[in-house]
Every structure is written in structure tokens, then in C-alpha cells.
């Protein structure tokens, strides 16, 4: 309706109609150029590289067909690293959604004293540099002097001088917990916005009808949060499955490959063994695994756009 108004005004002043359009095109041009050169081209280039034997330092490359993919699928470690990726992603996403939802319920309380300050405080992990978090994690869990390690050692839960990060059975769990710590604020905000959007009249009507708090929660709150949850889960799956920094800086993928997921595998192929072509093939496979999520998210957002 309003769009039509603008059009009407533009038509009214015939002379400026094309001029106005020109401004819009002029303004979007840098964005389009940038997306084409630095996003689309690298993505296509990456796909091309995956069919070559490109090396990091060598400029000559030749086409090798599906060689890199064959190497990946016959690799003995690929199933394990894929499984690590799934574990890392599933538990991180479930954890951050649950914690985010719990915190959203806390900050949604009306007339809470220091409510705004509390909300601001809970958002802080969103911007804490991953490197700082990684370093303090290593310090807290340091086998000799770390506060958590010495505590666990004195309780006899782990051996003397041992660290949870050095044991294949626990390293991934620690990383997932740290990752949940740093990534709950986004779900918290989205859930909080969704909670605020629920019509208060619904609750009042339900209370009048004799529904308890738990019942209203189950039958009003939960159904309302279904859609934001799906969109959040999709977005966070994409981000988490491809998130590299934290694991790399805390464990580097070890001990014994127990925390190596596909992003670490890509990095090691690219800058550890300099097999650019192979690294590209792994990232194409990771991209294909996530493509459905991306497509769903983009379609959903563009549809709700207008």
C-alpha cells in the first residue's frame, strides 16, 4: 500500500522517477559487487579447487576429477571426525537453546529490580573474544595450577597433574560446555522477544478458566515458541557445525583426534599438510551437509520479509 504511494508520487513527478530509481541502483551496486567478488567467486572457486590437486605454495595445478572426494570417503578418520562434528553440533545447539530459553524466562519477569542491568550482563558472553575465553579455559583446567583441575584432583575425580582437556573422554564435553557459555545470548534474545510478543490476554483468559501456571506454560507459551525455535536451531546448526576458533585454540583437535571436527580437518588439510584441493573437497562436503539448513533459513526469512 505504502509502496504504491511512493510510486504514485514518483509518477506524479515523472521527471524524477527514473532518477530516484537510479539512486537505489547506485546504492546497491557496491553490495552486489562485493558479494560477487568476495563471496560468490570464492565459493565457486572453492568448488573448482576441490577437483584439482592444488597445493598451498605451488601455482601449478591439474584436474584430478573426484580424486579428493574418493580420498575423503575412504579415509579412516573421516567417519570419526564427522561423528565428532555431529556430537559437537547437536549438544551445543540443544544446550544453548535450553540455556537461552531459561535465561529468557528469567529476564522476562516484570518489575524485576535491576532487570535491565541483569539483561545487559547476560549478553556479555556474546562479545567476549573467543581467544580470551580459550585462554582462560586452558588456565582454569591447567593440570598443575588450574583452579578446576586442582579441585577435581583433591576430590580424587582425576589423577594428579591431570586435566579434563588432556583426556579423550572428557575434552569434547568441556568444549561443548564452554561453547554453550559463549553462545546462549543470541537464543536468549530471540526467545525473550518472542515471549514479549505473546498476547497477555491469553494468559488472563486461561487463568479465569482455572488453568494453572504450568498448564498455561505448556499450552500457550510453548506453542508460541515453536517457530522461533525451529529458525534458531537451523541458524545455530549452521554456525556451530562450522565454528572453528574455540576448539582450535583450546585443544587443537586433540587429544588423539577426540575433538577434531570437520572445520579442524579442513584447516589441517589446508595449512597443516598444504593440500588445498583436499581441503576444498572437505569444505564442499560440509557445505552440502548444511545446504538444506541454509536454504530453509534463507527461504523462511525472505518470505517473512514482505
Amino acid at each position, binding site marked *: 500500500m505504502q509502496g504504491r504511494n511512493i510510486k504514485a508520487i514518483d509518477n506524479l513527478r515523472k521527471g524524477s522517477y527514473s532518477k530516484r530509481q537510479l539512486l537505489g541502483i547506485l546504492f546497491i551496486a557496491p553490495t552486489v559487487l562485493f558479494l560477487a567478488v568476495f563471496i560468490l567467486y570464492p565459493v565457486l572457486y572453492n568448488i573448482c579447487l576441490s577437483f584439482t590437486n592444488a597445493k598451498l605454495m605451488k601455482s601449478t595445478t591439474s584436474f584430478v576429477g573426484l580424486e579428493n572426494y574418493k580420498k575423503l570417503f575412504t579415509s579412516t578418520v573421516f567417519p570419526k571426525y564427522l561423528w565428532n562434528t555431529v556430537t559437537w553440533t547437536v549438544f551445543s545447539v540443544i544446550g544453548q537453546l535450553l540455556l537461552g530459553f531459561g535465561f529468557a524466562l528469567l529476564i522476562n519477569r516484570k518489575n524485576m529490580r535491576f532487570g535491565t542491568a541483569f539483561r545487559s550482563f547476560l549478553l556479555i*558472553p556474546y562479545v567476549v573474544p573467543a581467544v580470551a575465553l580459550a585462554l582462560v579455559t586452558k588456565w582454569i583446567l591447567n593440570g598443575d595450577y588450574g583452579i578446576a583441575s586442582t579441585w577435581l584432583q583433591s576430590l580424587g575425580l582425576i589423577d594428579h597433574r591431570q586435566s579434563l582437556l588432556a583426556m579423550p573422554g572428557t575434552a569434547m564435553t568441556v568444549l561443548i560446555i564452554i561453547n554453550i557459555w559463549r553462545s546462549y545470548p543470541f537464543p536468549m534474545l530471540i526467545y525473550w522477544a518472542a515471549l514479549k510478543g505473546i498476547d497477555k490476554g491469553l494468559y488472563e483468559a486461561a487463568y479465569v478458566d482455572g488453568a494453572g501456571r504450568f498448564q498455561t506454560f505448556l499450552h500457550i507459551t510453548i506453542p508460541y515458541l515453536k517457530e522461533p525455535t525451529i529458525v534458531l536451531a537451523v541458524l545455530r546448526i549452521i554456525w556451530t557445525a562450522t565454528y572453528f576458533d574455540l576448539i582450535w585454540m583450546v585443544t587443537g583437535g586433540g587429544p588423539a583426534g577426540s575433538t577434531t571436527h570437520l572445520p579442524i580437518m579442513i584447516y589441517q588439510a589446508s595449512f597443516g599438510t598444504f593440500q588445498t584441493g583436499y581441503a576444498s573437497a572437505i569444505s564442499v562436503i560440509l557445505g552440502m551437509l548444511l545446504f538444506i539448513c541454509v536454504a530453509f533459513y534463507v527461504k523462511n526469512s525472505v518470505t517473512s520479509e514482505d
Partner: protein
Amino acid sequence: MNNKIAGRLISKLGFWVLVLTAIVLVSFPLLWMALSSLKPSVELFKTPPAFFPRNPSLVWYGKAFTDSTVLRYFINSLIVAVSTMIIDSVFGTMGAYSLTRFKYRGRKLIIAAVLSAYCIPPIMLMTPLYRIIAGLGLNSSYLGVIIGHVCVTFPFCIWILISFFKRVPKEIEEAALMDGASAFKTFYRIVLPLCVPGILSTGIMAFILSWNEYLLSSVLVSSDTMKTLTVGLANYISSTEIDWGTIMALGTATTIPIIILFTAIQKYFVEGLTAGAVKG
């Protein structure tokens, strides 16, 4: 009656217990980093460690900030983050305004492209981008790192900015157009001033994302003097003799400005994000 009062009391008490637990859980790692950075060697390596430093000292900070490479890392990060912020704000503002207020063919496709770009993570851009940047001869240059950082921040910025522009009532613009103002003047004089808080907070968010970025910074720079702060810091940990005191001091010094910046803009950021990022 008594039961009801008791019930309310328990519920209130439970609520505050939860709030307190949340505060402890969220603040612990940061607090521990800051407290450790204030402990001199004797206390830092004591087992079991005491929670608060007995003789707080700034010795680690002194050690860190008299190191010329550390100062260089700070300056590098600052140059890269400020440049990223400016590029994202200027072109993001133009793009977002165009996408919200103009109708042309391919508009929807561009929105979809921005969103898809937002979903493409640094790890997938790393390998091709390294080759492209190196091919342009921009390895270990500010421009190379800035391009990398714009790649990972720009789609996010434009997406948030769209939500800010959408909230400017169209009637204001129509009135200006009616009065004979040109399209550019309408944008510059009417819309832009209304969006300053949104653009500013998006720009600061770009600064924060760039300041925190690790992967592309580490890949696109090989010379030590061009490293950014995050990469320099991460390298400290892989050296054979780990200097925990200095690391904690640097970690704290890296984090505090970011928390202050974020706290300053988070009101606008929350508005922008909850309005635009995820629509159920």
C-alpha cells in the same frame, strides 16, 4: 492464606537463587581471568589457588605493555577494526537503504544473496580467500585482512541495518519528495539523521566482530609485525614456556574495551537484532 504467602515467598526466593546462579556462572571465567592477571607469581602458581589476590599487582600488565610487539598487535587490530567498521557502515547503509526503499528487478534475489552470505562461515571462505588475497599480492597487508573481515561482517551488518531502515516511516520521505526534495537529499537530510543510532551501533558491532576475529586473520597474515591481537595472543599459548600471568593480563586487556563498547550500544543492538535477525 499462610500457605499462599509462603508459596509466594518460596517462588520469589527461588527466582533470586536462579538469578544469582546465572550471575556466578556467567561471570566466573571472566572474573577468574581478571583476578589471575592481578596475582603476582607466588600467588598465581599456588596450589590450591586463593580466589582473590592477596597483594594485587599490575606487574603482568607492565610486562605485557612494555613489549613492543604487543603494542604493535594492538595497533594492527585497531587499524583493521576501524577500517572494517567504516567500510561496513558506509556500504551497509547504502545497501540497506536501497533494499528497503526501492523497487527494482532482482531486489529479492539480492536479499537472498545477503542472507546466504551471512550463512557462509569463515572456515569455508578460508582456503579460496587465502589464494585470492595471495594472488593479489595482499598477503600480510592491512588491506588483505580488512577484506577478510569485511567478508565475514558485511552481510550481518547489512541485515541488521535493514531492520533499522524499515522502522523509518515512509510518510516522512513521501512528504519530503512532495516538497520537491531530490531522492538523494531525502535520504541524506531526512532518513540518515533518523538512523544514526542504528548505523552507529551496527558499526560498533562490526568493530567488535573484527576485533575478535581469529581464523582469517591468522591465515591471511604470515609476518609477525602484521599480526592482529587475537592471533598474537593465541600464539602465546602454543609457545613452549607459557607465561600465564602475561596471557591473563592481555586477555583481560583485550576483553574489557569490547565489553564497554558493547554495553554502550547493546540497547540499539537488541532492538535491531530482535526485529530483524530471526522472524518466526
